[in-house]
């Protein structure tokens, strides 16, 4: 009976609205995550963080930030390539946001359940780097250029382990569809038994993908002054760097939660009454918290050290992981 209900829901207009809502909710979600980051950071550092904006524990801090950025003067220096410069925020935002098209919030709460969902998610998530590179080039600023080049160099280093770790998951689940992958983890997430190594590799690579410490060399404030985004101000900055970073962070966390923690699938059969989206949000939230935690604890690596780490550690490890997964699969089925 439950399945029929789902079936009806899957084709209703209500669900269509829900699907659109997911995309529309992305901006408010960045505000929430931004606020959470400020508060978590502050409490880790023995501080309180924002307390006055919005009266209660500074809940409206990021809202004020957003409203303020709208009012700021949009500066473009004379030497900038104006067209490319202006396009950058759209590219980085879009690249980050498109991932959500295939991420299942519940069994049917997915905008498009593509057969090659995983492939699609990994492909679109690397679009934003083009934006960063373009920003570095168009800004006509040496620091930005260095930031852009660092981002491009980083892309090659982390993209391979990211894809290889995801490939092992696809092998394990026997599907590239994210819904099938989540379903394959009913009650036992992959991170716990089949893919713990893959999970760690994926997390490391995903941190590099969203340029967060210890892999935040493309934006390193102390070295190259927010890198590619040195010259950006006002809304271009808010969207190009801030919103894009948070959306990418949410996106990668959601992807990792789906691939390794089972996404919307409950952790225990007894807890089936808790709806799928809640499970999904809890798991994604945990991973976001983890990323924030790492961000405010570790120093950053050097670009060449990241390359070494990616090529000499992550990639061999992920190949081993694939091999082991394949071997186990073979042993199990024969």
């Amino acid at each position: 009976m439950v399945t029929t209900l789902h079936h009806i829901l899957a084709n209703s207009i209500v669900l269509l609205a829900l699907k659109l809502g997911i995309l529309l909710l992305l901006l408010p979600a960045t505000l929430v995550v931004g606020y959470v980051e400020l508060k978590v950071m502050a409490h880790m550092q023995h501080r309180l963080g924002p307390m006055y904006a919005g009266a209660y524990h500074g809940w409206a801090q990021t809202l004020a930030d957003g409203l303020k950025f709208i009012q700021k003067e949009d500066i473009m220096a004379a030497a900038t390539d104006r067209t490319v410069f202006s396009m950058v925020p759209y590219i980085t935002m879009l690249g980050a946001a498109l991932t959500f098209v295939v991420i299942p919030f519940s069994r049917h709460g997915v905008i498009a359940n593509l057969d090659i969902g995983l492939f699609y998610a990994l492909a679109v998530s690397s679009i934003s780097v083009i934006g960063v590179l373009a920003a570095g080039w168009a800004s006509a600023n040496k620091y930005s250029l260095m930031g852009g080049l660092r981002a491009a160099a980083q892309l090659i280093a982390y993209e391979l382990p990211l894809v290889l770790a995801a490939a092992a998951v696809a092998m394990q689940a026997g599907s590239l569809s994210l819904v099938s992958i989540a379903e394959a983890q009913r009650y036992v997430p992959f991170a716990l038994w089949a893919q713990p190594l893959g999970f760690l590799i994926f997390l490391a690579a995903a941190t590099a993908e969203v340029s967060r410490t210890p892999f935040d060399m493309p934006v390193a404030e102390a070295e190259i002054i927010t890198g590619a985004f040195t010259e950006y101000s006002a809304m271009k900055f808010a969207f190009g760097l801030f919103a894009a970073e948070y959306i990418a962070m949410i996106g990668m966390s959601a992807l990792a939660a789906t691939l390794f923690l089972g996404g919307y699938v409950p952790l225990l059969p007894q807890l089936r009454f808790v709806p799928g989206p809640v499970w999904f949000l809890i798991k994604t939230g945990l991973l976001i918290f983890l990323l924030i935690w790492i961000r405010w604890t570790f120093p950053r690596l050097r670009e060449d050290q990241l390359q070494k780490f990616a090529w000499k550690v992550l990639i061999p490890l992920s190949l081993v992981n694939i091999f082991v997964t394949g071997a186990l699969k073979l042993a199990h089925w024969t």
Partner: protein
Amino acid sequence: MTIDGDGRERVHRVKLPKSVSFLLNWSRKYSLWMFQFGLACCSIEFIASAMPKHDIMRLGVIPFPASPRQADLMVVAGTVTDKMAPAVKRVYEQMPEPKYVISMGSCSNCGGPYWDSYCVTKGVDQIIPVDVYVPGCPPRPEGLLYGIVRLQNKIQNENIPERWSGHAAKIPQIMGTGRSGGI
């Protein structure tokens, strides 16, 4: 903008609904991204104000941006020398409007203990407009926090059309002499 009979520019007064103007002012008041700009001694107290004991972030002052392009507030903390003055001015010019300046400490207010030096600019207000002066040598972190609250009050009462047309006169706030370290 039109030109008056006597050749002066006159701004068409745009009336903003009170609620809108309140909201816009409120957002700028609580989102003061502060440019990390330390010059001399005061910069240490300036850093101390961002640290656990005083935690300037409570007031919505976010000390993140390393680039002036993303900053709303510049705290000139320390002695401005004649050699540094062009750089200070340039940094100020790189900030996007609406922007605010707090002059922190006696040196940047008036030269302070270096009043007779041959290479110190006596007062940063000679090169950039200042919104709030915080006295002290150096001011205690609490002094800076009070200065920020004064700035926030000022922002909350701003007339947005005037400010954006560039016609609002900059009226600096001069704080009462609080208790401060040093001389």
